[in-house]
């Protein structure tokens, strides 16, 4: 019981930490710092996954933790660093919405997810409940980053943080099968995206190599 409460506190702290870092991402205005923050995000995620693995004594979760650590906290950020260099993307992020409103929106989303999750009858064990609340907010914040940032790299970062939220939720769900497979699948997905960015020389946004060509290739204004 004692153990349980500590376990609860720690995982709670870690999850809360993730939300906090997601919020931090929202007000980064330089690419490199954003990447670093994301690395931190991944690190905390791996910690919490590891902790979950420990308290659920589900060894396979360690795999997920390792993936999170190696792949997301190290490989991807480095790769993105290099992409930023190679494509000569200028360093500061121009965001569609100002930092302030974004932060407010972020707060609102966190509140929303809390409201939604706290309706859940607490016979689902509190751990899962809190975890879910945080996971949901991480997911929403990740989407928010994707939506508010114009820059491809930062959008990737947003997507990855979203996906971190998923992993958090998945690992929080005690005894959920396929977690590892899913995390692997997602890492591959992200790899695809990163490669795609690199391949298609996408600088500014996800849309197209050059903006002017955009409309032509909607096939409608030819």
């Amino acid at each position: 019981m004692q153990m349980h409460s500590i376990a609860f506190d720690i995982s709670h702290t870690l999850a809360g930490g993730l939300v906090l870092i997601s919020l931090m991402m929202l007000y980064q205005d330089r690419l490199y710092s954003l990447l670093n923050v994301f690395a931190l995000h991944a690190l905390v995620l791996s910690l919490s996954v590891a902790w979950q693995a420990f308290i659920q004594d589900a060894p396979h979760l360690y795999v997920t933790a390792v993936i999170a650590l190696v792949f997301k906290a190290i490989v991807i950020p480095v790769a993105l660093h290099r992409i930023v260099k190679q494509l000569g993307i200028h360093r500061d992020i121009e965001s569609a919405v100002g930092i302030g409103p974004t932060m407010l929106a972020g707060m609102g989303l966190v509140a929303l997810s809390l409201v939604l999750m706290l309706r859940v009858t607490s016979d689902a064990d509190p751990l899962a409940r809190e975890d879910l609340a945080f996971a949901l907010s991480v997911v929403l914040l990740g989407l928010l980053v994707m939506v508010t940032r114009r820059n491809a790299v930062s959008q990737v970062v947003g997507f990855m943080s979203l996906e971190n939220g998923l992993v958090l939720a998945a690992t929080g769900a005690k005894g959920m099968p396929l977690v590892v497979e899913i995390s692997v699948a997602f890492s591959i997905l992200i790899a695809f995206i990163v490669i795609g960015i690199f391949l298609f020389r996408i600088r500014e946004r996800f849309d197209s190599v050059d903006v002017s060509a955009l409309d032509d290739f909607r096939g409608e204004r030819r």
Partner: protein
Amino acid sequence: MSAVALQMVCVAGLLGLAALAIVLGRSKISTPVIYGATLAVSVFALAGALRSLLGGAADATTLTLPVGLPWLGAHFRLDALGSFFLIVINLGGAAASLYGLGYGHHEHAPHRVLPFFPAFLAGMNLVVLADDAFSYLLCWEFMSLASWALVMAHHREPGNARAGYVYLVMASFGTLTLLLAFGLLAGPAGGYGFAAIRAAQHTPYVATLVLILMLLGAGSKAGLVPLHVWLPLAHPAAPSHVSALMSGVMTKVAIYGFIRVMFDLLGQPSWPASVVVLFLGSITAVMGILYAMMEKDLKRLLAYSTIENIGIVFASLGLAMAFQANGLKAAAALAFTAALFHALNHSFFKSLLFFGAGAVLTATGERDMDRLGGLIHRMPFTSFVVLVGCVAISALPPFNGFVSEWLIFQAVLQSPELPQWALKIMVPAVGAMLALAAALAAACFVKTYGVTFLGRPRGTTAATAGEVDRFSLAAMFSLAALCLLAGILPGLVIDALAPVASQILGGRMPAQSGQAWLSIVPIAESRSSYNGLLVMVFITLAASLAVYFIHRLASHALRRGPAWGCGFSDATPAAQYSSVSFAQPIRRVFGTLVFHARDHVTMPPPGDLRPARLRIELHDLVWNGIYAPIASAVGFSSTRLNRLQFLTIRRYLSLVFATLVTLLLVLAIWS
């Protein structure tokens, strides 16, 4: 073999012919084979329908096929009402096929006509036979589709594509409204069988909604103003014998649908409903014929006049509803019979006139009346039968058009019996409107015949035209004969219609067969009576008497000379009255109100040799007021929405995000 089964066999035969036509394709024999076969089948079906109407068709025969809605099956039923409309359809079909035997040879794309012609006939037959909502709508829309294909037969001619498009959209609009109506009648349980609908009790709310929906649905097919816009586009676009079918017959199928639902399925009508129908009917009658008066395209003019006649029929049906709602069975039967009679007559003379227009088209290649003229010399037979048609449609004795209009007026004269003040005051006005429509129709067809067939040819094609083939003539002459017969022996028709009235209304007109001298007596002889036969006889007697005496007493001397024309004898044919100039007085009287018509005259200064020019601008207020705005609204909103096609992925993502957040918020607030 029950009557309905017989009809279904005929329908199957027609569908088989459609398939056969596809197989035969462009081969030479296909035209005679298909039209000959359709003629045979239609005559056969006609005989069957006549038998079931005259031979005590009070007992309806039903047939259920395991197709259509699975748990319901396709129900088919033949009762008196159905038999009557089957007669209309198959008579028109037979005439059109006969005409097609000759006309079809001038068709440059037979493979686009032949498969759909029998299919179209089959569709119309099926609509009348269908006895459940699903099969009804299926056949209804199938009919529209087949006729659409026929309209698109000459798809390369300018304007036809648009005509087909407008037609198809309006048809589908009508079907959807009918669909709503039937959905309402069937109720949530989905009792789509007509028997079930008949049995069910319908609240006034339902009845009102159904009336509106039927007026929209059946009205759009029949061409009620303001739903008529497709009709003058589509009917002329089709080959002429098909135009005849569409105008003469398909509109009747729409009327059938209206009667079936409003009188049969819905049970006792309510008098406010009749007010609406009366109003729409009379407006349609007058508007339709005014449109026709302004028209110079022969076939389109005929299409507009179809609208007028539909209006007359609907007005008469409205009267029937009014009387029925007040339990005045006899009067209701009178109005109802008059409506059916007029529908029948219209199918006669409108088909005849469209055939005539087709003959003119084949002979001259012209539809614009202002390039025609003097055809009475070149096409004597055609011009004679068309004259008969014109007299008949102008509601002049002793032809059939007059009889039905006379009956309608007799029904109008019964209106004092009605208790409701609204009706008391409205019906005379409606009567005046109908009289106006009839008089305008006479004017319109004086114009049509005078400009097309009389006078001097306005173009080379008209000057060198020749008479058409004998199949076409046979079809036209038989229809003309029918026009005369129905005009001089109306009693037979009325008695034949009695079972329909008694089936639908539970009352009937007094039997006419007993009347002396074959005259007809709608209510009682003291009230009013008419005897087409004697009028005919008197006129012929008087005329021949006159001729006799003149030729006995007066001089026979006759000299051909140039037309006097108060001295302008050598005026060019262009100086004749054209259709536009003929319409001018009526345009001056009604046009300014109805069409915002303006005449712009540009008179060159004295000494200037340029000809003076007259430009006439007409506005179709219905189109400009209703359809153009709708079209532009759709265009505008689609242009606006179309921007969503050109967003960046980030924007798309924000759409997703927004949706997600909204749903979550909804969840947070509600649950």
